């Protein structure tokens, strides 16, 4: 799986990030959840966000996807400063979050879920032919193979459900796909398929942010690793230039004084 990184180095050099946070801070009562955090996401690149529980990963993610507003600092899309009023506003800017279990309606079929809340309409009625055709195209584009679009998603496996949620995010125009623990609660086979799908997303030019506790997966899929500790970005490393040991040191704090961006 490692040969993926080298071929995509140009994408970083190619210019400005699709989505970035600049010196964002967030405080909850006495808890400083985020301190001057910076992160940049480029098209065609997978960034892994790692850190201990409470390190600020989910707060930073929520700022990026519009779920919370930062106290200070700013979020930029294509270099332009934006203020997301809600996750829906972020979605309109092409920033999509994929939730593993919250996103699907089990009793509805695959196509209905790919088009949830956004069904194609023709006149007064739903254009079902177009819906099934485009749902199939959306899955094919990501090499997701689900035998029947008519299967209720409640009958599918965790990996398939994850894939459908991702397909919807991309179909809705997501250029940035944020995934929270995409491989948690999946079997080994399914984990591998989801990791492959993440790489396909970046090959297709999406900027991908993966929050994960699993360093093996992180090293399998990420081009760059951003480590958070106590609300700060403790370091950013290119995968090729670092080791799991160094990342662990950054996570626990032993390497905090090393220069960021190796």
């Amino acid at each position, binding site marked *: 799986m490692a040969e993926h990184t080298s071929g995509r180095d140009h994408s970083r050099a190619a210019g400005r990030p699709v989505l970035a946070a600049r010196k964002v801070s967030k405080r909850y009562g006495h808890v400083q959840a985020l301190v001057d955090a910076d992160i940049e996401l480029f098209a065609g690149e997978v960034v892994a966000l790692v850190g201990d529980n409470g390190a600020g990963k989910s707060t930073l993610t929520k700022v990026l996807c519009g779920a919370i507003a930062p106290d200070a600092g700013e979020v930029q899309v294509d270099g332009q400063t934006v203020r997301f009023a809600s996750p829906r506003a972020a979605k309109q800017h092409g920033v999509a979050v994929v939730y593993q279990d919250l996103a699907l309606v089990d009793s509805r079929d695959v196509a209905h879920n790919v088009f949830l809340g956004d069904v194609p309409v023709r006149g007064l009625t739903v254009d079902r032919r177009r819906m099934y055709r485009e749902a199939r195209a959306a899955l094919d584009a990501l*090499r997701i193979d689900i035998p029947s679009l008519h299967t*209720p998603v409640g009958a599918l496996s965790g990996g398939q459900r994850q894939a459908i949620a991702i397909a919807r995010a991309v179909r809705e125009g997501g250029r940035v796909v944020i995934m929270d623990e995409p491989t948690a609660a999946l079997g080994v086979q399914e984990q591998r398929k989801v990791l492959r799908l993440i790489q396909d997303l970046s090959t297709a030019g999406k900027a991908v942010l993966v929050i994960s506790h699993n360093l093996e997966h992180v090293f399998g899929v990420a081009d760059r690793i951003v480590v958070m500790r106590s609300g700060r970005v403790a370091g950013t490393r290119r995968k090729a230039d670092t080791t799991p040991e160094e990342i662990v040191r950054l996570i626990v704090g032993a390497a905090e004084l090393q220069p960021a961006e190796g």
Partner: protein
Amino acid sequence: MQQDVIGSGSGSGAVATRTNDDALSSYVGRLVRAREFGIFCGALALFVLLSILTPQFATPENLFNVVRQISLLGIIAVGMTFVFISGELDLSVGSMYGFLAVVMAQLTINGGVDPFLAALTVIAMGAGLGLVNGTITTRFAIPSFIVTLGMLAVLRGAALLTSGGLPVSGLEAPTYRLVTSSYLFGLVPAQAVWLILIVVAGAWLLRRTRFGYDVYATGGNPTAARHVGINVARTKTMCFVITGALVGLASAILIGWLRGTSPLTGEAFELDVIAAVIIGGTNLFGGSGSVTGTFLGAAIIGMLSNGLVLLGVSAYWEPVVKGAVIIIAVLVSVTVRRRQKV
């Protein structure tokens, strides 16, 4: 380079079995697996059984009579189907039916209002009451069970207050009665025509329109629905409004049919309505169900009542049989759902 694909099974030798989704074989397979198919088989079995047991059952006159008997139940149950699928419940329909029937009778018989205008008035009032049910339920996040239980009591009281506790009767309105209780071609009751119209319109709204899709998403997973931008509160409220309007329509037809009403009309009627929806396979907890199923559920209830009378069984047995059928229907539905994991 790994070439495995999501969903192609767990084994290494798994081959993708994708075929054309719209192939005839899979269409027939889906049809047979559809919940409505099982309910249809149940209704058909009951039909055959009653036809064998009693010769008077399977005559056109009697069958149309059955449809007429379930017509108002069916009309209200169509609305209740929307409410159920959206993940809510409306216990106030029986009282609302009684109250709006009293209002309809008062307006036309004592007030001299044109019955068509009065009918539109009670339909609008029903929609308004549904708006109240829906708004309180969604705005204040109070379970609809409680909101509509309160409304059940309020509206029964309102029916008694409006009528002074006395029956209202004696509607003289030939044109209106023609529309609500005549026989088309001397055979098809007008009430049955209304029922079919509402069933077709309801099924279309639920299965074909964006609103219908939103109703399923809202009841199936409100969090997901909200996340993709569906207005969950408004969708649920609309389901209550539709139900209220249909209750208004049913009470307007009732007055044309019986030419009057008693303030106790519709007592415990909500239970029959809920029974039709449940027997029809709609999920108690929202997310799945259909208007067609509800129609079949109402038909099963109608055939049971009618068949028991024709067989000369004591009327006291009717609720026993009806209750048993509800329990059996839910058992079957739950078992099937567990096997399909949905």
